[in-house]
């Protein structure tokens, strides 16, 4: 490494530039997709609002109860009550979450409305509005849960449904791998982009290389990961402890769900 090397001639003068090829767009697209995926996972951990304070397990449980009630109900009065509550809830959310929930739920509702349009035109109007509103509510409530809870908390909440702890650990590790490997792949695409300065006929050829490197990397990492677990005394059992103090938002959430459940039976 210490010996002085002669620098070749071509390194001493600038090269002429090549034309931009099709491949650039291919790489560009992959970079764009990966970038968005990572941003979506990352942004989740930064979204905080009053709904984030509710215990994830309680939130998950409430969602299940509410979806159950909404889909069972045939009463327009009940659905309108829930709908008004939903509008109220959305109106006090931070703007970025509000926007995403509205886009998600309205898209689903419009899609449903269009799908059911033929039936409506033929003359079956019975539950047309009811079904569309139900879809809107279902998607909105699910969106509320997903957008105000971190992935990790959501996975941990599965404990409530008697999902084994070891399985929860595996889901956590999977999520971690998605982030780390997306990051790794993104960087390989960046490297590829930097080196792709000319035209090549086979635009997808480097992808095989990226996939191969990724495969080797993942094997290496999973071995190391297991070693790391053994080093910290892992012996096949794993227990998560999700204990947290009761927050007043938890009470509010319970009261909200209970009130809706009572009105469900009242308006039946």
């Amino acid at each position, binding site marked *: 490494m*210490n010996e002085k090397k002669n620098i070749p001639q071509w390194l001493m003068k600038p090269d002429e530039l090549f034309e931009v090829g099709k491949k650039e767009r291919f790489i560009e697209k992959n970079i764009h997709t990966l970038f968005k995926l990572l941003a979506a996972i990352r942004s989740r951990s930064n979204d905080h609002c009053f709904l984030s304070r509710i215990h994830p397990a309680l939130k998950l449980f409430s969602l299940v109860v509410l979806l159950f009630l909404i889909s069972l109900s045939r009463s327009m009065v009940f659905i309108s009550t829930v709908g008004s509550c939903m509008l109220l809830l959305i109106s006090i959310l931070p703007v970025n979450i509000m926007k995403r929930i509205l886009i998600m739920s309205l898209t689903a509702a419009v899609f449903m409305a269009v799908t059911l349009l033929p039936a409506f035109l033929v003359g079956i109007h019975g539950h047309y509005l009811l079904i569309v509103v139900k879809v809107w509510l279902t998607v909105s409530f699910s969106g509320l849960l997903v957008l105000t809870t971190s992935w*990790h908390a959501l996975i941990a909440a599965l404990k409530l449904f008697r999902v084994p702890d070891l399985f929860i650990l595996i889901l956590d590790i999977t999520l971690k791998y998605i982030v780390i490997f997306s990051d790794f792949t993104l960087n390989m695409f960046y490297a590829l982009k930097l080196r792709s300065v000319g035209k090549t006929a086979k635009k997808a050829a480097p992808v095989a290389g990226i996939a191969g490197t990724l495969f080797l990397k993942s094997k290496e990492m999973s071995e*190391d*990961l297991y070693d790391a677990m053994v080093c910290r*005394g892992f012996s096949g059992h794993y227990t998560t402890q999700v204990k947290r103090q009761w927050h007043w938002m938890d009470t509010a959430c319970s009261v909200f769900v209970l009130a809706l459940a009572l009105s469900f039976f009242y308006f039946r």
Partner: protein
Amino acid sequence: MIDLKKVTYSYADHTALSEITMKIEQGESVALIGPNGSGKSTLMKVISGLIYPDRGTYVFDGTKITEKQMKEASFSKSFHKQTGFVFQNPDTQLFCGSVYEEIAFGPNQMGLSENEVRSRVSDSLELMGISGFEEREPYHLSGGEKKRVAIAATVALNPDVYLFDEPMNALDPKSKRFLRQFMIDLTQAGKTVICSTHDFSYVDGVFQRAAVFSEDHRLIRDDDYESVINDRAFLREQNII
């Protein structure tokens, strides 16, 4: 405490360690020095009981470490509690969904009570200067922060022997200074510190002893740290500086 006799290890047919003989006593701080691929990481894996010598013996605290011995759950738990390994790449070492669980993992596996676990986690975080990180997701942290979490997770087990694999890699100067001071504190607390490195700029005053590995996977010098590090001609010859 750690007694290696003629330890040889190969990956498939590729030799990684060749007849390594060395003894490390409780409270010593040893630097493992050598070029890339000389077998430093492999030696650390042997010492932490992750792999077993093909030939030669490894005795820890009077017990010979073999695959059979490590299969005994109670022994392997107490052995792993005594040896803490900080991996080179913190990404592979962190596997839980939150920093809290990450650090609580070891103490939980050791069966400590919940209160004890909680106080260990908060103490370890404070020691590493990352209090308030409990609810963060490890894979969203920066490189230096990940390293600190990985070290905190090791500290929480309160091991007697700390193994650091090229800990200074990819750290900023502030974190390097922090880690250097932390290793000095560990030795002063009577812990054994074994650390592989080929970056000598931030480790002055940490080590008493240096073990030098050659490119053909042998231990070629085991000496006072200062005298090795000042022997520039020797280090240059071994492709280390």
